[in-house]
């Protein structure tokens, strides 16, 4: 009798109330539980996997399922960094791919900044109605499939592609330019794909800028171009940093763009990792490559994190 009574009463109470009394009876504060849900998920599926990558990078390759082991030839447990990390240091292919990826990512970031800055600046100084439309135009490609945007460039860059056809029919060139499967195509693909990531934080920053500073500078006789480099650019520094990190960090490990647009000479570390893993089934080396990429990215990741925290502080 009593238990059905309780059940009836519980069912009449709103769900939130019922949940609350259940939790408090368990001695769990709501706040802790709220934090715990995303926290545990991220620890389990984001942080823990990195520890496992580190773990696998110290193993031996075996022909088994899974193809790695921590038992050496004589059956004893061994942390083996000689095979995986040793290979990265000894074989110049890895070092070349590693340095090349950093270079490609760095130059692409600079190119995105140079191309994106005037656009973000222009958008931030437009009338409100125009601004919204332009913002929509920048965001739209971001929502369309990344893979399809890379695919689009194949049709343009091929030897019998649109760019070559147009240039040849205009008699600007006699024989097709070789653009597909080159480093040029890789740069183009990365700049194209990541440009919105540079423009959006720059725009967000420039839009909030206090324009009275520029007016003051003009009143004091400063030329517009000088005011731009002395006031606008330094003030937009947080936006520049945020945009640069959003381009640089993922670009270092880029796989799809060099795979589709680049040639065999476009060595990038993300491609090396995938090949080691899927083609060679050398999981320890693939994991060691991942660890090496992460080491290069620790600094940029921390800068990015610091920026995110600052934004949060500033707005709250």
């Amino acid at each position, binding site marked *: 009798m009593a238990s059905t009574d309780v059940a009836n009463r519980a069912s009449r109470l709103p769900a*939130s*109330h019922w*949940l609350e009394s259940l939790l408090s009876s368990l001695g769990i504060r*709501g*706040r802790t539980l*709220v*934090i715990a849900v*995303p926290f545990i*998920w*991220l*620890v389990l*599926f984001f942080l*823990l*996997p990195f520890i*496992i*990558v580190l773990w696998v990078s110290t193993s031996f390759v075996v022909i088994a399922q899974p193809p790695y082991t921590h038992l050496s030839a004589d059956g004893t447990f061994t942390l083996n960094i000689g095979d995986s990390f040793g290979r990265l240091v000894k074989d110049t292919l890895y070092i070349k791919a590693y340095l090349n990826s950093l270079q490609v990512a760095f130059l692409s970031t600079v190119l995105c900044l140079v191309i994106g800055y*005037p*656009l973000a*600046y*222009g958008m931030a*100084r437009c009338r409100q109605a125009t601004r*919204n439309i332009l913002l929509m*135009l920048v965001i*739209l490609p971001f*929502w*369309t*499939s990344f*893979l*399809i945007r890379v*695919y*689009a460039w194949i*049709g*343009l860059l*091929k030897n*019998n592609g*649109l760019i070559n*056809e147009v240039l040849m029919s205009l008699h600007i060139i006699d024989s097709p330019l070789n653009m597909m499967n080159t480093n040029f195509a890789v740069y183009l693909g990365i700049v*194209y794909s990541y*440009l919105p990531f540079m423009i959006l934080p720059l725009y967000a920053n420039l839009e909030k800028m206090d324009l009275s500073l520029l007016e003051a500078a003009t009143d004091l006789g400063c030329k517009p171009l000088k005011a731009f480099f002395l006031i606008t650019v330094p003030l937009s520094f947080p936006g520049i940093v945020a945009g640069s990190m959003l381009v640089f*960090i993922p670009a*270092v*490990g*880029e*796989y*799809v763009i060099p*795979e*589709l647009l680049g040639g065999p000479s476009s060595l990038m570390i*993300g491609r090396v*990792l995938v090949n080691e*893993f899927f083609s060679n089934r050398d*999981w320890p080396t*693939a994991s060691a490559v*991942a660890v090496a*990429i992460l080491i290069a990215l620790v600094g940029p*990741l921390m800068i990015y*994190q610091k920026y995110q*925290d600052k934004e*949060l502080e500033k*707005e*709250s």
Partner: protein
Amino acid sequence: MSNRLSWFVIIWMALVFIFLYAPIVSVVVYSFNASRLVTVWGGFDTKWYGALIADRQIIDAAKLSLLIATISSTLATVVGTIAGYVLVRFPKFLGRTAFSGMVNAPLVMPEVITGLSMLLLFISMEQIIGWPNGRGLTTVMIAHVTFTLSYIAVVMRSRFLTLDLSLEEAAQDLGAKPLKVFFVITLPIVTPAIVSGWLLGFTISLDDLVITSFTNGPGTTTLPQVIFSKVRLGLDPKINALATIIIAIVSIGVVLATLHMRRQEAQRQRDEQMAIRAIAAQT
């Protein structure tokens, strides 16, 4: 705006927009090409759309991708909304810095690393606790939830940041418990942001290739995996047709969302002005 934009900036902007849109336009145009050679114009034809619909492999993969994106984005929206809320409302707790780092990092982490690490996690878990048994839908969805929840958390974080606290405070003053305040006051207000967060997560999940390739098993192939294997073999007019459909859906969606937001903004301004006038009339 008092100082007008210089010609340099205007021409630059036009060129960048051409750069952004020329490839997309070319894909759409060539999807209506009668010629099999994707880059040679052979007259207007819609036959590739027919061929696309008849391609079982693409249609099955598209259905699977839509299923994965729907489920994982829904889950990611729940976890991501909580994460965004925690970031804004709980400024101090043990491990907050680590938490904020774990929310932000997946946004920029190279996909090959996320993919590899998730796969190694699933394999280790299988060895130790016997679950997940092999890889497939479940593992792909867990991976998708993990990296899309960051995007959603960022969207929700900025929404919670700009949220007017007075309504929640009023409800609390009237005796509502925190959980009730959240479900009755906070959640309805941020619903538009939740919808856009869900859509963002859905699109990102639908588009993912690298992380899916790592965490997927044999037998389940998603749409980006099919597109990638076809694109590797060369241009395919069916892919152009598929791309055009995707671009059309996204464009309509983004335009409608922008119009809707503008209407809401105008409505909000009207409401504010009316409120001000009402107050002015009373005093």
